[in-house]
Every structure is written in C-alpha cells, then in structure tokens.
C-alpha cells in the first residue's frame, strides 16, 4: 500500500514539475475589462454562431457593414459609411469605409463581404436562411449542394463593382437589411488568412478547417482581435490597432472568463474577480434583487415564453386532436392566471402577457390585444366545442424540458386547467435535445416554447407561424395570415407594413396556436465602476464603449 501511494504522489510531482518547465512567452497589460459570459463559447465562426455567448464575442471581434446603436438599436454605419437604396427597396448599394482595416493591416474591401456571404451559401450554417432575402441565394445554395460545378454565383444578387462598393439585390423589398448586416452571419471574412486551412473535397466543394478561427490565425475587422482561446478557460481579446475607430476604443484588453457553474460565477463576480456577470441565473438574480442589491440590472428582453399547441388534425399516435378546434385553444389560453408564475416561480417581475410580440421593442408597432383572462368565457368555449365542464376531454400531455423553471410552471398550469376547465393533462419532462427534436417533429400535444427575435423587425417573430415556416412547430395553417405576411413582404411603407403585421398578429392571437405567458427579461450584474454596458432588449453590447474605470 505504501508503495502505491508513493507512486501516486511521484506522478503528481512529475506533472507539477512538467508544468514548471514552461517559460513565459509574452507579456501584456492586465485585462482592462473582465466578464463572465453566459457559458462555454461553442464556436466563433460567423457561419455557425447562434448562441448568445458566441454572438457576444463576435460583436467584439468583427464589424458588419452596419452596427446597432446600443441605446436606440438603430443601425449606424460600421464597415460601411452609407447605403443607397433603390426606390422599390430591392437594390441596396453599400459604400464601404475606405479607411476600414483588418487586424493584420489589410484594407477591408467589398470582396471580403462577397467572400463571406458566398461561403455562407456554399458552406451553409445556422443562419443561412437569412440570406434567402437575397435574389437567387436559396437556389444557388441548393444548386451548389447538389453539384458545385454547375452552380453559378453570378445568379446571386451579390456584387462588388469596385473595392468600396457592394451591391445587394433582393428578391422582395426588405426594410431591415441594414439591421441584418449587424448580425454575425453577415460579418466579412479575411480570405487570405483562411487560405492555409482550405480543404477541397472530391466534388470540388471547398471548406475551411476550424483552425482558421483559433488564435493567432484569426484576422478580424472589429475593435478587438482574438489573442487566446482555450475551452473552459475563456478568450482574451486585445484592441485591434488597425481598427478605423481605434482612438475611441476605451479598454486595451478584454478577458471573457468561462465559468460553467452558476454559483461559482456569482462568487467570482461578488469578490471582484470580474467586472460583469452577463446573465446570472434567474434564481441568483432574484436573490440579489431580494437582498436589495443595486448592482443587479433586470430589463426587458427580445423574447417571449409561451405554450405551443399542436393544431394538426391528428395528434401523435393517430389520436383525434380536440385542439384542432380553435375554441378549445382559446379556452386553454383564457383559463390561466399568469401573474403567480412570475411572482412565485421566475420572481423577476417579468411582464405577463397575452401577446406574442414584445411590443416594447418596437415603438411604432401597434400591438393588438390578445385573449384576456376570462374563466367563464373559457368554460363557455369549451362547452361549445363539445366538452362541457371538461367532460369527455381526451387525456393530453404537456411536454417540457426539465432544465430551469419549466417544470414548476407546467405543474402550475396543469392545476389552472384542472381548476378552471375541469380537464386533466399529464406532464412529461424530457431532456433538451429530445425536447427540441419532438417539438420540431410536432411529436407533442402541448409544449413549452419560446422565441427570441434575431433582427429588429416584427417579421422575426411573425415569420415563425407562416404555414411553410420551418419553425412552425404548432402546425398551424391560416391562409389569411400567410396572405398578410406576403403583403407585408412587398409593402415599402414602414408604418403601413407594421399595421399589416399587427393585423396578422391579431389573427394569430385570436386563433391561439400559442398561449403567451410572459416576456423574458435580461439580467446583468455589474457595479458602478463599469460604464458602457447598455441595457437593451437584444443584449447588444458595443465593447469599444465599455470601461471598468481602471484606466486601461
């Protein structure tokens, strides 16, 4: 026994000694701003970014043609200085900033955008569908996937007549293109720096090895450049000296610390190891609020928590679907008292809602009222549908994923329906991947759901319920709704368009393929010494404006 344990310690000592051999490679000033991101960054490839934590780092590293003003969320010039828009809003001509530079000193040209956008179609990723607004883009992606040799990029409405001009032709008028350009999938890429990692397969299709993203290979055009990245440790960013607005970048370096455990993340923030704790859990935020802490900031978000109702004629297992009848859906929606959910479960004063679109994010949007809470009316509707007092109502299952607060909320709602409608639903909790798959396959009766907007336009919400939408998990089909969305697609007057979309939402809410419960809130923890972290619904952070008051 003695022998064994001394072997163990010998190996431990050897490992320690091994790490002592490493000598320092470079020196830098202590990071001027440190923060704990929401979780592990999964990827920093603009093609694949979709998680909030990935996108957040993306904003620091890149700059799209346009950026968003963190306070008003209006598009402001980024890599471009101005846009000319054709009368019918289908041709956008971007004029690039001539002094725009990559982190290796090269000039940012329109060819860099063409390259990145083309790659988005040839090496498609999570947000490739946002490019479908561009003329010929979807067809090109399809053609290229089946045979790269036959696909002709000239058919796509992306052109660079000269180094500072980018012309984009759209298949229908789009009023929010500048806003889209601020989003990571539309970021430019430096082709030269990616060349060493180029792989061509047998069919002639090109892809780039992930190493091009890892430091020191990654070349970006934003205020910061990526200096180091280790999984479960985090990223270190340093000011990009070639950035066109470098003189207005407040801190010289940023450290994003990866901490997976929520309690530890809070403790590290509390002891001052980091300046900003982005998105503490609801539980921690609620406790901080309860303790009267001034450094917890809770503000509206760009998302809605709701229940999705399967509207197809048959439920999985070939059962008859009582909820194919809109009256049943309305009854379900009107028989829930929502306030206790935010008072007792989520505890962050989330605004309860009967609407789908978070209207506070769209000042000009006249949100239609949703279905009110009305137990008597709900019972009437249910009776009219043939289930008076819930009699004869088939047993339905409420599906949710077991992470977070979904379970207590589901339990509460089951009770509400049992009390007010006399119907019983069964609860089924599954793990997130299984949950997503079942939701997407419409393999559920009623399910917990949520939606966050991607860009600053109402259509980022309304599109979800289009009958041919990939994300129409409810299987709800309404020709009038589709027709209104089509009208909105070609409407070039901003206010008129919003009114059409409001009319569409009114149909959606009345038909109730979803039961809105509350709008999400964002949670940030930071102290007074930190300036420049904006509290906007979209979590949009402009890193160049942040300081932690430490002078570097």
């Amino acid at each position, binding site marked *: 026994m003695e022998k064994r344990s001394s072997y163990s310690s010998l190996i431990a000592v050897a490992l320690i000694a091994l790490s002592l051999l490493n000598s320092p490679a470079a020196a*830098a000033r202590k990071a001027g701003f440190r923060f704990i991101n929401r979780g592990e960054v999964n990827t920093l490839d603009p093609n694949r970014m979709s998680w909030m934590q990935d996108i957040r780092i993306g904003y620091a590293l890149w700059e799209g043609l346009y950026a968003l003003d963190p306070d008003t969320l209006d598009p402001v010039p980024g890599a471009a200085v101005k846009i000319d828009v054709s009368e019918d809003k289908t041709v956008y001509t971007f004029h690039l900033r001539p002094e725009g530079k990559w982190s290796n000193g090269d000039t940012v040209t329109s060819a860099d955008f063409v390259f990145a956008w083309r790659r988005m179609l040839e090496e498609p990723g999570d947000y490739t569908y946002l490019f479908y607004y561009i003329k010929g883009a979807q067809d090109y992606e399809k053609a290229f996937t089946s045979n790269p040799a036959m696909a002709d990029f000239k058919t796509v409405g992306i052109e660079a007549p000269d180094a500072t001009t980018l012309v984009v032709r759209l298949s229908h008028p789009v009023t929010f293109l500048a806003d889209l350009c601020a989003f990571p999938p539309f970021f430019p890429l430096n082709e030269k720096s990616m060349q060493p990692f180029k792989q061509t397969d047998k069919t002639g299709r090109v892809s780039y090895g992930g190493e091009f993203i890892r430091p020191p290979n990654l070349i970006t055009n934003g205020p910061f450049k990526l200096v180091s990245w280790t999984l479960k440790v985090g990223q270190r960013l340093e000011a990009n000296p070639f950035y066109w607005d470098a003189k207005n970048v407040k801190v010289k370096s940023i450290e994003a610390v990866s901490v*997976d455990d929520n309690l530890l993340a809070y*403790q590290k923030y509390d002891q001052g190891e980091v300046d900003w704790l982005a998105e503490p859990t609801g539980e921690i935020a609620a406790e901080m609020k309860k303790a009267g802490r001034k450094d917890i900031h809770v503000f509206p978000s760009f998302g809605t928590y709701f229940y999705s109702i399967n509207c197809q004629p048959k439920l999985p297992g070939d059962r008859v679907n009582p909820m194919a009848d809109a009256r049943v859906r309305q009854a379900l929606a009107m028989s829930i008292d929502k306030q206790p959910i935010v008072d007792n479960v989520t505890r962050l004063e989330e605004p309860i809602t009967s609407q789908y679109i978070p209207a506070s994010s769209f000042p000009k949007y006249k949100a239609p009222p949703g279905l009110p809470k009305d137990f008597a009316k709900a019972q009437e509707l249910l009776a009219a549908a043939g289930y008076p007092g819930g009699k004869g109502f088939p047993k339905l299952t409420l599906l949710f994923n077991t992470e977070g607060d979904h379970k207590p909320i589901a339990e509460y709602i089951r009770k509400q329906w049992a009390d007010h409608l006399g119907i019983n639903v069964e609860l089924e909790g599954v793990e997130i991947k299984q949950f997503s798959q079942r939701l997407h396959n419409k393999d559920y009766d009623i399910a917990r759901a949520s939606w966050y907007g991607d860009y600053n336009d109402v259509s980022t919400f309304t599109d979800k319920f289009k009958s041919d939408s990939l994300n129409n998990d409810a299987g709800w089909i309404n020709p009038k709704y589709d027709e209104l969305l089509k009208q909105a697609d070609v409407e070039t007057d901003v206010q008129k368009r919003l009114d059409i979309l409001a009319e569409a939402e009114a149909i959606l809410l009345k038909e109730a393929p979803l039961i809105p419960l509350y709008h999400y809130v964002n949670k940030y923890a930071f102290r007074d010494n930190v300036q420049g972290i904006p509290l906007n619904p979209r979590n949009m952070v402009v890193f160049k404006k942040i300081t932690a008051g430490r002078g570097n």
Partner: protein
Amino acid sequence: MLRFLTFRLLQFPLILAIIYLATFLLAWVAPGSPFEKERKLPAQTKAYLEEKFHATSATAFLAYYPAKVLTTGDFGPSLNYPEFTVNDILRKSLPVSVTLGLVAVAIALVGGVLIGTLAAVKRDGPLDWLSLSVALIGVSVPSFVAAAMLLTAFSFNLKWFPLGGWPSGAEQSLASADTPERSTAYASGKPQLQDALDHPDKYFEFTPTRDRIGTVTGFEISERDGVKIDELIAATGFDWNQLFDHPNTYFRLRTEWWLSAWKYFQSICMPAIALSLLPMAYITRLTRVSMIDVLASDYVRTARAKGLSRPAVVFRHCLRNALLPVLSFLGPAAATTLTGSFVVEKVFNIPGMGDYFVRSVLNRDQTLILGTVMIYSFFLLSLNLFVDVMYSVIDPRIQLTQGKA
C-alpha cells in the same frame, strides 16, 4: 504470469472495439442531433453539416471515424466545438483529471486504510465511531453538496483557497529584465524609477496569464493600489506607461518553485478532498471489516503468542491480507476518479475530462462521446489488470494462471 499478461493484453483491442461499437450505437439512437439547437435547421443546411462531419448515417460514420482512430489515433473534430478536435480536447483535459484523481485516490487510500485499520483495532471505541461517521458522510452527502459547501466555506468566506480554477502552473515573481530599454530607463538616474525597476513588486501587480492546464502564456501587469501613474510621470519625467505597454522589455518573470508547489497545493486541496470522500468511505468500511476478520484468525494469535508487538502484527502481518478487498474496489474506483468527475470539475471550474464526458452526451457530440468513453474504458481495463497483478504481489498464494484453460 507472462502468459496471463499476454492473454489479457491481447483481449484489450477486442474489448475496446466492442465498447466503441456499443457506445456509438447508443449515442446514435439517442434522439436529437448535434447540429440542431432550439430552432430547426433548413434541410439543405443540415444535410451539408451532416455530410461535412460524416454523420449522414450510422454506416457513413462507422466507415470514416473508426478507421481514422485506428490508423492515426485521431478521433476527428468535435461536432459541437467545430474549432477543436476531440484529440485537442482530450490532450488538454486528461492530464488535469488524472492529476486531480491521483491526489484524490491517494487521500482516499491513506485516509481510508488508516481510519479503517484503527477502527478495527479499537473496535467500538471512539475511533470506530469516527470511522462510521466518515463512511456515513462520504456515502450519503452527494459530491455536489460537499463540493459546494467546501467551496463556499473555505474559498468564498474564509478565502484560504482560490475560487476554483486549476493550479496555475509555475508561480513567478517579477524581476528586472536585462534589456537595452531597461538599462536606458535605469541610467536616466531618476531614483523612483530605479527603485521601481529594482523592486517592481512594490509598484506593480502582475498576474501570469496561462491556459488552465498551467502553461504560462505571458503575464499581465497593472499598477498596485495607490500608485498614481500620472503623478509618477510628472515626478520622474519618464512615461511610465512604457512599463505597462512593453513589460517584456523591462521585466521578466522569475520562477519560484516553492510558491508554485504551494499554489498547486492550494488549488488542488478542496477538489481533491471533495472527490476523495466517496472512495474513502468505501475503503474505510472495507478495511475495517476485513481487518476484524483477519485479527480473529489463528496466525495472528500465533504471532502475538510468540511475542510480537501489536502494531507490528497489525501493520506487518494483517494489513497485507486485509487489503485484498480494498484492492478489488480500487481498480474501478481509480478509473472513475482518474478520468474526472463531472460534478467536482463543474463546481470548482476545473477543465478536466469529466465535464466533457457529460457535456458531450448532452450536446449529442458523438465524436467527443466516443473519445471520452474510449479513454475511460482504457483506464478501466488497465487498472483492472493492474489490480489483478497486484493481488499476486500482495498475496503470492493467488495464482493468476490457475483455473484458466
């Protein structure tokens, strides 16, 4: 012995192949895709990603990855972290888990055997009660509770230990660098500046930057509390910002090995204890029970009768026999501990393999699942073999080749 070893070693590849296949099949039939997140991917995008990562079908996966593992030892790219390969991840995380695990196993073994033995010798005494408490706590307190309690008490409140993280490799202090820039600044004859260059620790705070395994990648430097750079610039007429902006040309790091050892000890202490509680509980109980058996046997009485002292009998004659059941427990326990614990690594923010083990399953990251499972299996097989060999070392009467046709 040799025959036995050869036979067992020949079994290895076969068992590993079966484990690979079984793991793959389980991972493959699990619902959900590594590429789909909360929203659905367009069909052509999903098809592209599946083709790119050779995941269009089970046969496509099996036609590509196993051959790659066999020929190059490359488990392929992680499906969830496209910028990293499975080998990158394992190379970084395995040494961390193994180091932590070895310390934890050592604590469990030394502590468990000691307490168990003493409990058996002083049966029904206070020590026996202590051993029972240790075992009860170890078995009944889940490690995430124990880990969080240790962290909150000793790191957050008492501040004796760092708030999680992995030992930070080489510990250094700041010293003057022998460079022309430094000599020029020094020669300018400003007493305060000379003092800063001679005793940088008085003016600057520095933090080595490194990846979490402890490889130092550089250092960060900032002014100490109370040091006013603007005033110093005015007083000395030298731009002190130079010292910050190009610290390498003025300072270097001096490695302090004793400080490193201390830091290592500090960071490893809490997680190792948290990790050792459960195996320690088992070892304590196993040692106690078998020790009581052995103490009652005839040869012990003979040894005592011929005049040997009690400690000599216990430690020289009994322990060897009493440890056999502990040994058979130790094999699988060590394999689990060495390949990392999801809970302890998560709570203490330690970049080990246990976390990936669980996370890869949640992400349906099939390549990473296979990588971690294969490493884990390899450890389990090797340690079981090691335990079998150790049997015959501890008790020469056990013949390894017997009973095997």
